[in-house]
């Protein structure tokens, strides 16, 4: 593919982000004209309730969508390269299972052990879910991190990650079995994923952490490219595979762990977007793929957010289902057309 074509694609993707960002802000249960939205964004006081809806509800939600799309896609790309596996994604090391375990403990164990957990729950207030998810993800991250120092082959690490996913999943099941319907529901709602739960307060923590994780991945472009040749060749051209692996895991844990904590586990994006990027840009080079997945992920997530607001209706669909229902066919179509999966992982 010519460099000109690539630049054209990148510019188009950026324009798409701008367009969908505006559409995402326009659509909602309260209709606000688009010219007023631009006025509100530039700091004008149009109408107090409109200002509030745009600035404190729709804008953080749209930014969250962009961060989720970009972050999970980059994590997924790095995991697929590290494990040389087209099915790998940001959650493959059990980070999201750890987060769910944390949330499940917080939500449901407070019923079983009302004393301890109830007190913590009361103390943390609205941050309870976030803190518990971060705690759960961190525990898994520390375990996987220690394992990655001891274990020098990636496949074993992948299997250990999947095993941890199963173990935590089983513990969550047991908790669900013993908990009240009410608590069960609030846990299940968390697993649906939601972009609208992030307020500015939380954004102040989430955005910087995710951005730092993303910047780390851009430093990893060179070793990730070398890893495409396999671990032995990568060592042969002077890359420390172990160090690269640890940095990839740290970056993924920061990005995927934080996003899961604030939005719930959002599946699909992290596995699918890297494949779309390879198909569209026709290359495996990370110098192209990394910015590409950031942009494609952001576009896809904005579109999903727009689709999740059922037009002319107050309800919003759970984002986790929307990504799969609307994104799945797109990805299948792209992959069938270009056969890039076979070219990338043959």
């Amino acid at each position, binding site marked *: 593919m010519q460099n000109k074509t690539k630049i054209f694609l990148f510019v188009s993707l950026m324009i798409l982000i701008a367009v969908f960002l505006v559409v995402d802000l326009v659509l909602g249960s309260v209709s606000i004209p688009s010219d007023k939205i631009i006025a509100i964004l530039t700091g004008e006081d149009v109408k107090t309730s409109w200002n509030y809806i745009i600035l404190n509800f729709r804008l953080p939600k749209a930014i969250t969508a962009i961060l989720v799309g970009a972050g999970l896609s980059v994590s997924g790309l790095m995991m697929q390269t590290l494990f*040389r596996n087209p099915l790998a994604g940001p959650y493959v090391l059990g980070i999201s299972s750890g987060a769910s375990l944390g949330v499940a403990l917080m939500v449901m164990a407070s019923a079983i052990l009302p004393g301890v957990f109830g007190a913590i729950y009361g103390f943390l207030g609205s941050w309870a879910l976030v803190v518990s998810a971060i705690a759960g993800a961190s525990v898994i991250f520390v375990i996987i991190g220690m394992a990655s120092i001891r274990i020098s082959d990636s496949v074993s690490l992948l299997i250990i990650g999947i095993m941890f996913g199963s173990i935590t999943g089983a513990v969550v099941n047991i908790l669900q079995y013993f908990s009240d319907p009410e608590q069960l529901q609030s846990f299940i709602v968390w697993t649906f994923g939601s972009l609208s739960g992030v307020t500015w307060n939380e954004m102040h923590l989430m955005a910087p952490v995710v951005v730092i994780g993303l910047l780390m991945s851009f*430093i990893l*472009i*060179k070793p990730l*490219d*070398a890893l*495409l*040749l*396999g671990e*032995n*060749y990568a*060592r*042969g*051209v*002077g*890359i*420390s595979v172990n160090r690269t692996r640890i940095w990839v895991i740290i970056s993924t844990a920061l990005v995927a762990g934080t996003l899961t904590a604030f939005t719930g586990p959002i599946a699909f994006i992290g596995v699918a977007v890297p494949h779309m990027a*390879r198909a569209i840009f*026709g*290359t*495996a*080079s990370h*110098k192209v793929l990394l910015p590409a997945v950031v942009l494609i992920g952001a576009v896809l997530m904005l579109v999903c957010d727009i689709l999740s607001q059922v037009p002319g209706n107050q309800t919003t669909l759970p984002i986790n289902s929307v990504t799969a229902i609307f994104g799945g066919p797109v990805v299948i179509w792209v992959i069938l057309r270009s056969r*890039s999966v*076979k*070219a*990338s*992982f*043959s």
Partner: protein
Amino acid sequence: MTDNYFKDILETKGLSIGYKQKRSEDLCLLSDLNLTIRRGELVCLLGPNGSGKSTLMRTIAGLQTPLKGKTLVEGVPIRERNFSEIARLLSIVLTERLQVGNLSVYHIVSLGRHPYTSWMGRLSEKDESMIKWALEQVGLWPYVNKFINQLSDGERQRVMIAKALAQDTPLIMLDEPTAHLDLPNRVEIMRLLRNLAKETDKAILLSTHELDLALQAADIIWLMSKNSDLKIGAPEDLVLSGSIEQTFKNKSFNFDRKSGNFIMNYQKKQIVQLVGNDVMGFWTQRALSREGYQVTCEKTGNCSIHLKEDEMVWEIHKDGEVTQCRSIHDLLLGLNKKL
């Protein structure tokens, strides 16, 4: 004599290779190796499967800890350096097939410049000219923008050799570089490597179990065999001393010192006299041996085969009776019927 130029590129000092084991004594494959490779030398590490070729290669490349001793490349001890410093001293080409397809030839060869680029991986003019030079050396410059999955196995191997050349190291190590290739490609790769060693003055070490190619291309052979010391010498010296025969000895075939080939041992069933010489005689003899006849040029028994070279006709003389055959295939069928 300037010492610098004649200095050996690779040197091992008292190197012992093998595996450290937790509960029992270390498993030592070879001990106290003092090996050297000079500039411009192509060395073939030759040995049957399971003789420890890979272990020796990995140990020399610093990927495996030696039980004792050390490896020096241009006087620098490998084990005391990190990956990126080692990558400027030696480059490797592996047997394993690349698992990625949608990378351009240029991109793959440019990965050889990794030890010299910054964390961004930006290529300088010098990097770019090295990549071009490397691709020209292996004759793949016209393919520079192709994807690796558009190339044949032989071309892929040449891309990886170009990657090693772009890495600009005094020592290039190749682990069974001809393993997946057909005969013309095998010969081509060996010829290429030999020329590269002579022209670039690099030291090239490759492991192989293909005796015939090693005998023809190598300056020096390191001969490994199970339960015996490493033997070192020019290919011809190792043939004359019988070391090659010893190493590859087997009950179903023999190594023929005269031709440098393996001859399979077939059960001999009948003595046949062959009258005639030259190319036709040579191939007729091969066919007869394969079918289990013991071929001689002296008069023996009552069966002989006469060659009419100008007509390409084979005559079977048996008990005064003469049968004419128009091909070796016919000849063998005719003989089987008669004897």
